């Protein structure tokens, strides 16, 4: 399975160093965490000492073993043996004036693509795949490229992504898949995953949607036609659902249509998904803005609703003079600027900008992020001189260095640690910007304005491009969203095991902690599977605030798949709970100390399991958000802590678990507790807490245990039958 053609020197020229895998045999416990993850099979077991032994000649120095060894019992001395990464070529037009050509060029030939694909190690536990928010099966599609099978590669991509052509162009791979690549974690240049993905989408044949009928009969409304809406609509329509998409603009696509200029994402690529969706029969209603008040109507008319409205309201800097003419937001500028480039008209002809008669205006752009750079570069293409200012120190600003470099090469002046203080104007139109210097000592701290550092700058136009937020009107309907992505309180052990946290801040990822940010994204992604209200899912920027295209796409895909799994129905009205159809998937979540609570859970499982009802019993610490999303009925069982009648309450672990529960969106829930003397009001408190999370409490039961370990199960039959609505003949169960 070797994946690199030969061990050649890396760009740092460390070819001649000898490879030496050093196993610290005193500490190696033979757990084989390295053996099962070594991409080149260089690690084996010595069955007598039960420690790992190494074959140096097979090692390529990726150091996956070092990152995954739980006891730091392995050390690689030697070079990282990886070929030089393919370079991102750029198109260099004679003049950028009104030039909308795509600047980042694809891989030129299949040979080049294969050569780059040969750099991939095909890691058994690929960290790149965790870094990708959509979890594209990167090693598999790269393997297909290496084997010359582009159709297979495209097929692999299509399992997880409906926008590979878009994502390959707009994703910041450095902090996602490529930053998490084994080579990147080892301090070298990662595989050019984005370029290979783009190569596949540009060279493989168009793949028709794989049709199914799992959602036949479902009617789903989607608010918003951006990447989240596209992904959701695609998943639903290919399973036979009837999908209606409401878009407030005149053209579908949201941000990928109007927010990303053609020189980054060509128009024909951006519109491709909607051309297909319309062909597939999705009912698209443009120029239709849905307000908060209409959300309930939609829930009444459709079986499920996905809110994928994005974060489209530009953030305005509240400065003196901010309401002068000549101060516009990024959306306005980008929409009209792109149109002017396409039409060949000049910037002075864009009426909304009010630059009539100004042939070469000076534009001040506030911000240096993605949108600000798109604004600045669009402005340069329209002949303006542009200065972009950002109040953060460049060290801490969330900006892409490649974008900054491209913008600078096009003549954009970018100044960090500067902020707008006020604007003054002539005759109601902006003319002068007062700019102050700022200082910032850490990423966590907000920049501070330096006193006495202000300077004036003559400006013809000011574009506020500091970012977006969710429209406050629709936000009222989102039940607490957008939420803030944050690092996990308890880091998932499978992610630790993969080694993604071991060298967390590779240089290629601009020193960012790829493990932490990937896991933060993943936690938010899994929230998209769980409805915020009965039959209402919120996805994309509406769920997590302004984020990336690929995250929005993953959210839309996962929400749609959850809808297909559960098939919610409008027939009971909008407020009867998520699952109007009969209970089919029951999750019994158990916190058990001595085993009694678990056994009761298993006894309930026996009573309600049938060919129609699937029941899982799981301990609390094994329950994932996907398990919660899977269930259409949750049963929570826990023991009761306390000494006789003192300090009676929920055990610590149950309390901690409840805190981590996402909003349950009306999930029918039953609860039981086991107690020895007196459960006091534990059941009631637990019910209240769950209701606070949005659960609909259906049944409650307290089971008394004796010191000998026997349990009074007299209430179990009623409890079980209330869940499925069916009485089953149940054998007497005693637990001991």
């Amino acid at each position, binding site marked *: *399975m070797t994946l690199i053609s030969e061990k050649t020197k890396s760009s740092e020229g460390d070819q001649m160093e000898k490879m030496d*895998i050093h*196993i*610290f*045999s*005193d*500490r190696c*416990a*033979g*757990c*084989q*965490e390295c053996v*099962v993850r070594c991409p080149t*099979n260089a690690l084996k077991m010595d*069955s*007598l*000492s039960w*420690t*790992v*032994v*190494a*074959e140096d000649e097979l090692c390529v120095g990726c150091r996956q073993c070092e990152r995954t060894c*739980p006891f*730091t019992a392995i*050390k690689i001395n030697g070079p990282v043996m990886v070929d030089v990464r393919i370079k991102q070529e750029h198109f260099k037009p004679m003049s950028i004036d009104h030039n909308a050509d795509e600047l980042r060029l694809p891989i030129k030939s299949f040979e080049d693509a294969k050569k780059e694909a040969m750099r991939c190690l095909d890691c*058994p*536990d*690929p960290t790149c795949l965790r870094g990708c928010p959509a979890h594209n*099966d990167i*090693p*598999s599609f790269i393997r297909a490229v290496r084997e010359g099978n582009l159709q297979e590669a495209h097929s692999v991509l299509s*399992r997880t992504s409906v926008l590979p052509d878009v994502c390959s162009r707009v994703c910041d791979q450095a902090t996602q898949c490529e930053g998490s690549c084994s080579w990147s974690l080892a301090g070298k240049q990662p595989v050019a995953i984005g370029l290979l993905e783009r190569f596949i989408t540009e060279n493989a044949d168009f793949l028709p949607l794989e049709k199914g009928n799992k959602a036949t009969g479902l009617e789903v409304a989607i608010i918003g036609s951006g990447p989240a809406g596209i992904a959701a609509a695609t998943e639903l329509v290919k399973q036979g659902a009837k999908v209606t998409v409401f878009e407030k603009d005149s053209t579908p696509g949201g941000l990928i249509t109007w927010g990303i200029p053609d020189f980054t994402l060509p128009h024909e690529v951006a519109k491709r998904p909607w051309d297909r969706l319309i062909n597939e029969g999705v009912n698209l209603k443009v120029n239709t803005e849905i307000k908060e008040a209409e959300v309930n109507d939609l829930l009444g008319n459709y079986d499920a609703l996905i809110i994928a409205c994005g974060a489209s309201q530009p953030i305005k800097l509240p400065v003196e003079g901010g309401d002068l003419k000549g101060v516009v937001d990024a959306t306005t500028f980008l929409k009209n600027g792109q149109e002017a480039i396409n039409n060949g008209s000049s910037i002075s002809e864009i009426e909304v900008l009010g630059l009539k008669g100004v042939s070469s205006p000076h534009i001040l752009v506030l911000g240096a992020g993605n949108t600000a750079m798109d604004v600045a570069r669009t402005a340069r293409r329209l002949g303006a001189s542009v200065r972009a200012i950002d109040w953060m120190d460049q060290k801490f600003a969330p900006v892409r260095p490649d974008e900054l470099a491209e913008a600078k090469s096009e003549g954009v002046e970018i100044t960090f640690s500067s902020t707008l203080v006020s604007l003054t104007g002539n005759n109601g139109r902006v003319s002068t910007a007062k700019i102050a210097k700022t200082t910032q000592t850490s990423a966590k701290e907000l920049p501070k304005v330096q006193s006495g550092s202000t300077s004036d700058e003559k400006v013809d136009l000011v574009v506020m491009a500091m970012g977006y937020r969710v429209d406050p009107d629709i936000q009222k309907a989102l039940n607490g969203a957008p939420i803030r992505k944050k690092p996990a309180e*308890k880091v*998932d*052990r*499978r*992610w630790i*095991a*993969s080694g993604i946290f071991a060298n967390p801040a590779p240089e290629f990822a601009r020193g960012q902690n790829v493990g932490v940010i990937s*896991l933060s994204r993943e936690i938010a992604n899994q929230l998209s*599977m769980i409805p915020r209200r009965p039959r209402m899912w919120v996805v994309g920027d509406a769920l997590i605030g302004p984020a990336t295209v690929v995250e929005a796409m993953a959210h839309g*895909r996962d929400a749609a798949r*959850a809808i*297909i*799994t559960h098939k919610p129905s409008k027939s009971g009205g909008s407020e009867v709970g998520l699952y109007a159809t009969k209970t089919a998937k029951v999750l019994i979540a158990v916190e058990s*100390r*001595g085993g009694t609570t678990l056994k009761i859970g298993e006894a309930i499982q026996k009573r309600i399991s049938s060919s129609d009802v*699937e029941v899982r019993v799981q301990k609390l*610490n*094994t*329950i*994932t958000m*996907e398990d*919660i*999303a*899977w269930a259409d009925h949750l049963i929570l069982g826990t023991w009761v802590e306390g000494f006789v009648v003192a300090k009676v309450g929920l055990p610590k*672990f149950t309390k901690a*678990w409840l805190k*981590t*529960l996402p909003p349950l969106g009306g999930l029918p829930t039953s609860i039981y507790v086991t107690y020895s003397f007196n459960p006091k009001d534990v059941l009631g408190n637990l019910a209240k807490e769950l209701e606070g999370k949005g659960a609909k409490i259906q049944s409650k039961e307290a089971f008394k245990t004796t010191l000998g370990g026997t349990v009074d199960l007299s209430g179990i039959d009623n409890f079980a039958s209330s869940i499925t609505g069916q009485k089953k003949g149940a054998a007497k169960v005693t637990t001991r």
Partner: protein
Amino acid sequence: MTITEASQVGDEVKGESPSTISGATGSQRVAVRLRKPYETDVEQRFRLTDPSKGLELSKNKHVRRVLKNRKFQFFLILPNQIVFWGVIFLGILGTVNPDLNFATAITWFLWFALVFVMMVVVGRAWCVMCPFGGFAEWIQRKSFWNRTQKALGLGRKFPESIAKYGLITSVGTFLLLTWLEEFFNIAGPGNPEATSIMVIGIVISAVTFFMVFERRTFCRYVCPLSALIGSVGAAGTAAGFRTKDRDKCLNCKTKECMRGGDEGFGCPWYTWPGSADSNLTCGLCSECYKACPSDNVGFFIQKPLTSMIAPLRRRADVAWSVLLLWGLVVFQQFNAVSLYGTIDNWLNTKMHFPQYPNPVDYIGIIFLVTLIMAGIAWVGSKAMKKDAVQLDLSGSPVNFAGAKASSKTIKHSFVDKKSQFRSFMLPLSYGLIPVVGADYFARQLPKFFLNVLKLVPDVGAWFGIGGGTNAKLFNAEILSGNQIVAVQVGVIIVGMLASLYAMRKIIKRDIVPFATSPFATKLVAYGTVLACGVGASWLYVMMHAAT
């Protein structure tokens, strides 16, 4: 709340479509294709060392509840913590009379003897309740018992150039501490203040190591008692925390027992229950038991001597530790003989060294004894086959150190490398463990039998009762000098018999099938045990005669 992924195991799935799981999204989220773990010889490899299923104590509901409780270790440490802080304060502030001072009395009359009983009967029982490592660990974890996620300190890895010698570092610190104890006369007849300073020194060392290095690096590599408890503890009946189903452990993708889980820390001793074949490095702390999400770790007991007879992997660090520790205990017996006094005085005069024990004769005698033992092993190894012994896990005969090294990793490992010398020396040393342990235990007996009753008036003196030095118990002895020698010789005989029993089993499996002259190997092995036993007994008689 954790996140979801599905995974596939085994090379055979490489290149195949990811399988699906019945999750909410109807498909897997992360396509993981781990290689299949090596399992070919696993059953044979652990056949002899895995405790029987029936010996799992944690099957008992009450034991299970205790071990699952996060306060389990805290409450074992707490009493010792109180006692040793008492030692620190009373050693400095209390009476200078070592017999009357609680610090010296508890430490040297009772504690040291108890530690030996615990190590011989249980294994690393002292380690689970040790107040030194325990105190430092509370600081490192920033908690008395809670599972915290971030450790205090630098979390460095112990330098491999030292750690590769395994328990040898611990033997080194034990030799150093013993020399200091002899030089400053801390233990006998005793010095309360010096005892207190010694305990403070151990606490400071422990805290420093816990702050610089990860986990229980101090306990595993540096603690003066680690090698002694680890090797002699092989006689103990606690097998420690072991896997219940090894296949499940091998295919576990997260190894919470090693990395730490929601309810337990990763093993502080760098031990994996899935591969533990002795109780050598199990600190009995129960963290793996708590951390395992699959309830696949159990607490097992075993027949006495199992951890020295059964392991296929014979570790060179254990073997050399046994020989060095034997050297030390022989020195401690020999130093009571008048001949030693003559040698020590002569050396001190020549070297202008102030007092007993001269470091040269101290180290010289220990190393000489160790070299004599190694020389005996070398002679014995001449009766072993020169060619690499073929390993056959499926049958009973195995000689770890004689098997052909499977790679340069093994060839370069101090612990595991192979040679003809090691093919005899390693099994021989393991077989000597009971007699060495017995000798250490026997040496503690005089202090115990002569002085332990003083503890009662010592404690009474705090409250002004009991009569202090005039108390009957203060001047009482459990056994007289002659009786003690008899008991000491008896202990040595018991140790010798246990060694002979262990050696017989070890010879049968590890030596005779690979010997060119089985008789010669048996002669050397049994002869060494007998010589050690007789020699130690004779030295006790001589010691008594000298006093």
